[in-house]
């Protein structure tokens, strides 16, 4: 046992205790939720303590995993995503009593993706993230939820197959399993090119980048609301983290092999994702296409392939995640016992609850990238990274994509601030757990936009991993 892995060990212990609590408690038991939340908080505290430890980076299990400032920041992001999903779905019997256990298990997969340094850890992380999410997507038990689970399962298995075959070819071309020991100039060429291509396709599938995005809207729309928020934030963090590790560590010296491809995919994703978001009537589907477009922004950070890109990507993940959590918390308040919210359901929201309407405006404007919000600062850093990388095409794509996105996000806001057509609408109740998520997310979004310095400092330190291999 190594002390560097305590955040992960605490989540493992949390999974076991939560499972036992579910087994031994009565039907209406809320204990499992508290145990899961305690495990999340404990793991977060240990991650923070470890941040100032002098002996990072630590390599464990024969370069199987590495703990460094990057993996700790990924820990923080995915813990935030898991806590958000857990609180948004707090004690909701509709998702079954296993909900907290499965959230913790998927969290463990995301943490492993931040740590992974060889193919085995990479594969285990991807699967540990995906398998609980298949169950969670289908956990509502309705026809739509089952359909979402089935589609996620089939496309997840398909993309994992592509990823595995790519990793196998890379193993054959290099003779090593360790990502940071891949030396591009020593690789057997046709095998290595095929392997890199297939691995990239597999990872990009998980991230939801445009030619491979077909599954995202259906799965997001069919899954229960807290699960969708978890997919939109947590899964993106995990997939972006492993993509960055894999490309920056394994192939940093031969960026000509993948840089242009990733750049074109980024531009295509930003523009197509935002264009398709324009036409959506269901709010979850709109958020799904927004998630696709935001994955494109993340790819800008990877394609620019410099330390500014790594830094901007981590910062943008936080800004995007906070905005997503706020929108999903508001959607659960508005949806109450339904599963989905259409844009028209928001009509007259400012009459029913002025605060909710205001918070929705802040979150959506952050996604669109309006100044004084975290999304704006994140996009500025991404633009700067593309500029330093001497890739004006990326910067141009980002600006055009954000312009189109603004039109898509203004539509639900316009409904929310328009007069209700019917009689007086009843006010909206605020469940306490969801309110915590909403308020923290909104304060965070504004805070990142007004005073980003502390987070920028942390992210800078974390992105230094890029030079240390």
């Amino acid at each position, binding site marked *: 046992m190594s002390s560097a892995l305590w955040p992960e060990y605490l989540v493992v212990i949390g999974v076991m205790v939560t499972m036992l609590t579910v087994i031994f408690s009565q039907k209406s038991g809320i204990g499992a939720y508290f145990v899961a939340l305690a495990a999340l908080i404990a793991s977060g505290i240990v991650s923070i303590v470890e941040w100032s430890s002098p002996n990072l980076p630590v390599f464990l299990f024969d370069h199987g995993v590495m703990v460094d400032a990057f993996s700790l920041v990924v820990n923080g992001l995915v813990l935030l995503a898991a806590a958000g999903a857990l609180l948004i779905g707090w004690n909701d019997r509709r998702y079954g009593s296993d909900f907290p256990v499965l959230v913790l298990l998927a969290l463990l997969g995301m943490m492993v993706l931040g740590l992974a340094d060889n193919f085995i850890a990479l594969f285990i992380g991807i699967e540990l993230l995906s*398998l609980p999410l298949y169950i969670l997507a289908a956990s509502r038990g309705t*026809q739509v939820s*089952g359909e979402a689970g089935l589609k996620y399962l089939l496309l997840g298995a398909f993309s994992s197959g592509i990823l595995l*075959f790519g990793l196998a070819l890379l193993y054959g071309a290099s003779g090593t399993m360790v990502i940071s020991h891949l030396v591009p100039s020593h690789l057997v060429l046709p095998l290595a090119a095929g392997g890199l291509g297939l691995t990239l396709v597999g990872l990009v599938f998980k991230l939801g980048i445009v030619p491979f995005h077909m599954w995202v809207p259906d799965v997001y729309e069919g899954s229960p609301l807290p699960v969708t928020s978890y997919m939109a934030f947590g899964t993106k963090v995990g997939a972006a983290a492993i993509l960055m590790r894999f490309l920056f560590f394994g192939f940093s010296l031969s960026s000509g092999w993948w840089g242009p491809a990733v750049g074109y995919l980024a531009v295509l994703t930003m523009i197509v994702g935002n264009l398709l978001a324009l036409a959506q009537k269901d709010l979850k589907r709109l958020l799904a296409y927004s998630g696709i477009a935001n994955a494109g922004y993340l790819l800008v950070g990877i394609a620019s392939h410099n330390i500014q890109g790594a830094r901007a990507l981590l910062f943008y993940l936080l800004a995007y995640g906070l905005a997503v959590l706020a929108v999903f918390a508001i959607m659960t308040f508005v949806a109450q016992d339904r599963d989905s919210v259409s844009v028209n359901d928001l009509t007259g929201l400012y009459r029913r609850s002025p605060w909710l309407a205001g918070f929705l405006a802040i979150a959506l404007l952050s996604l669109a990238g309006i100044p004084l919000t975290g999304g704006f600062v994140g996009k500025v850093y991404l633009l700067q990274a593309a500029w330093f990388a001497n890739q004006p095409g990326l910067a141009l794509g980002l600006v055009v994509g954000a312009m189109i996105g603004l039109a898509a996000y203004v539509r639900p806001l316009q409904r929310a601030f328009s007069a209700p057509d019917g009689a007086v609408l009843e006010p909206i109740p605020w469940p306490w757990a969801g309110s915590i998520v909403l308020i923290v997310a909104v304060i965070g979004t504004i805070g990142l936009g007004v005073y980003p310095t502390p987070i920028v400092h942390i992210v800078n330190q974390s992105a230094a991993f890029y030079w240390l291999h």
Partner: protein
Amino acid sequence: MIPLNWVVGLAAALFGIGVVGVLVRKNPLIMFMAAEMMWNAAALVFVAFARSFHAMSGQVMAFIIIGTAAAEVGIGLAIIVSVFHHRHRLDIDEVSRLKG
């Protein structure tokens, strides 16, 4: 001893059959089986290269792939059965309440 190229060629053929199976077939069970075939093709490549490198890491990976595939089959069959309960037919083209 079978040459390495033959084994990798066989695995590539299996992988290709799996990809075509997922893309062409309409029964979710068959699609799932075809996806598992892609996984097994990858496991075969890992074992073949591990033998030619005289290294253990590829063999370990093959075991992990098999174990994970078993877990995935457990979850997958449960989801497919629950979808079947709702409609009593299995055709992926009819599973289309969600359209984008």
